[in-house]
């Protein structure tokens, strides 16, 4: 049993953006365990005001350097729904493929660059290049594949160029899709290597029951649009995003907090897994089983494994998507549309969880009001309470300062927080 403990982490490393962790335990009592986001706000919701719908996705993609495709597509979906535009089938498929690419890239970045050093006790991936060459190579191969998928489908791996309102400004060439398919097939062994490596690690056990939120569409693993559901039985329409999020501010954080049925909730890979297990590819289920992961898992550290499981699903599903795209005419994949007044929400499953963009347009198609709710925002409260619980447990177990610090860092990283994105 530990009675006194203070932790003051200034600018937590190996996460995207700036946040601090402050913990004080005095006389066996937890005084405070704070998840304080100090990132500089950028005010995207203000910037888009007056901008033409056509340009908006190019702006909102700049909310995040890791999940720019999700942001772009959330805006596009909101604007398309607001102006009653139906994108062509092929475009929807290509967009899904793009989302897969981004998620694969983001998950592998997280798994190999951000958390693997924790397990290997190194400050970064760099020493691992020499000590675990095969695993690192596998990770880089998968990350490269993710980037390649995004590149082929959207023209660039960060900040997509061809995702536009109405469809796609340019369809990928079939030859490139064929190459991509070959690449996917060739890189499946890399994923096996990665899985084997993660199986060899001990994932910390920590459980604090919570509510998991994700999209749901009844037919496939969620990606773009659908109903909003939670493990506590909530089921709402996409446009009801406000009642799902209930954003509020805390004075120590420039990122907002949210809540639904309980004090906190979770979005992300584990939430998707918990809500949509049945729609995973059988191979992904197999991998989940090999880690002993099944729905509903309440261990935040298992989010990392859920990400790995999603990678397996993505490779399989991306191959299937390419196969069906190869049988389609990929020439005109943009519907022409009329600019009109409207308002709607676009929800997508970004790598880190459900992402909402809400857009209101005027009759000239200019945005008059916008609202974005970011996955990390929706995880803030949960991170906050997890930090408290894990500190209490660790102190109770009498762990050393260094051990507590590391556990705290690790639990935060397991959420793969995207801080700059959450303070958009």
């Amino acid at each position, binding site marked *: 049993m530990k009675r006194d403990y203070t932790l003051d982490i200034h600018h937590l490393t190996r996460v995207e953006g700036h946040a601090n962790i402050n913990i004080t335990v005095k006389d066996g009592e937890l005084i405070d365990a704070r998840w304080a986001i100090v990132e500089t706000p950028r005010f995207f919701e203000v910037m888009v005001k007056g901008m033409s719908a056509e340009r908006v996705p190019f702006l909102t993609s700049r909310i995040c350097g890791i999940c720019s495709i999700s942001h772009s597509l959330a805006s596009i979906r909101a604007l398309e729904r607001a102006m009653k535009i139906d994108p062509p089938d092929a475009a929807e498929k290509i967009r899904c493929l793009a989302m897969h690419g981004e998620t694969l890239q983001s998950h592998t970045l997280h798994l190999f660059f951000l958390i693997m050093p924790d397990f290997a006790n190194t400050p970064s991936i760099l020493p691992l290049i020499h000590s675990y060459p095969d695993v690192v190579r596998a990770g880089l191969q998968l990350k490269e594949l993710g980037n390649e998928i995004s590149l082929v489908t959207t*023209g*660039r791996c960060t900040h997509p160029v061809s995702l536009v309102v109405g469809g796609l400004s340019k369809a990928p060439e079939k030859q490139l899709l064929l190459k991509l398919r070959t690449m996917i097939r060739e890189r499946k062994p890399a994923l096996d290597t990665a899985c084997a490596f993660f199986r060899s690690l001990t994932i910390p056990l920590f459980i604090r029951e919570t509510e998991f939120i994700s999209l749901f569409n009844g037919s496939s693993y969620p990606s773009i649009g659908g109903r909003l559901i939670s493990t506590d039985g909530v089921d709402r329409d996409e446009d009801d995003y406000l009642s799902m999020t209930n954003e509020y501010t805390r004075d120590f954080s420039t990122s907002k907090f949210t809540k639904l049925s309980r004090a906190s909730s979770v979005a992300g890979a584990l939430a998707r897994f918990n809500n949509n297990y049945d729609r995973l590819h059988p191979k992904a289920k197999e991998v989940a089983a090999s880690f002993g992961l099944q729905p509903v898992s309440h261990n935040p550290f298992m989010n990392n494994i859920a990400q790995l499981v999603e990678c397996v699903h993505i490779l399989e599903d991306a191959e299937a998507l390419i196969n069906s795209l190869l049988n389609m005419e990929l020439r005109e994949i943009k519907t022409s549309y009329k600019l009109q007044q409207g308002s709607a929400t676009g929800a997508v499953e970004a790598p880190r969880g459900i992402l909402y963009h809400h857009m209101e347009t005027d009759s000239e198609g200019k945005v008059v009001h916008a609202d974005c709710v970011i996955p990390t925002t929706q995880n803030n409260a949960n991170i906050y309470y997890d930090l408290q619980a894990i500190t209490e447990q660790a102190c109770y177990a009498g762990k050393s300062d260094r051990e507590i610090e590391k556990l705290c860092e690790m639990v935060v990283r397991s959420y793969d927080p995207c801080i700059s994105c959450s303070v958009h």
Partner: protein
Amino acid sequence: MKKQGFTFEKLKIASFDFTCCEGCQLQLTNKESTLTDFFELLDIRTFREISSEKYDDYDIALIEGSISRQDEVERLTTIRSQAKTLIAFGTCACFGGVNSLKNKFPLKEVVAEVYPDMPVETLLVRKVSDVVKVDLSIHGCPVNKEEVERILVNLVTGSQVSLPKYPVCVECKELLNTCLFELGEICLGPITRAGCNAVCTTGKTPCLGCRGPSEEINMPAFLELIKERKLSQNDFQEKITFYNAFEAFTSYEA
């Protein structure tokens, strides 16, 4: 690292981010095929996004993002005093980037819109060179990893770093793209510095000029072109102000 007659030193480099999306830093982990070789060139002293190590002795500082809070000004000034070479890394750092769109609105209104019940500090967005001296600029939203790699190799080998002086059209034509003006769009390619390999126009979306003006642009002729083709003035304004990269030319009206 020894190469016939030369000894190359690893670059003691640090990477810092300010008001931005961190997409440019992320590019440093891209181009995986040469990534291990790339990291071999660097002695990374600080790079919060991927490493927990933090040292204050670095020669080169990569600065990502624009400056929009007082604490950022102070952090940047400290970095400047340490770094021998300070590199403005990406469009936000070089020109202010999309963040500058905020400057069109009164700051009070801006804060009230997003944080109605909480006071949040924010300043007018500035580019890095408005605050400290910049030694080298790497443009792009996001930066092109290939170019970054080449520039850092140049720094290691002591070669002169030079950016293309010509505009995006050159690269666009190399890729046999149909000119977007022919498709009825306004494209900033003719006045924007090349080096991105014309990614946007190759994806059939107009260049928004993230790399800033190319050398000696002919703005009057460009404006005449827009007028003569009867293209939308609003569209032009929206494009040329998008990244704040044409600050010096935005007083122009087509």
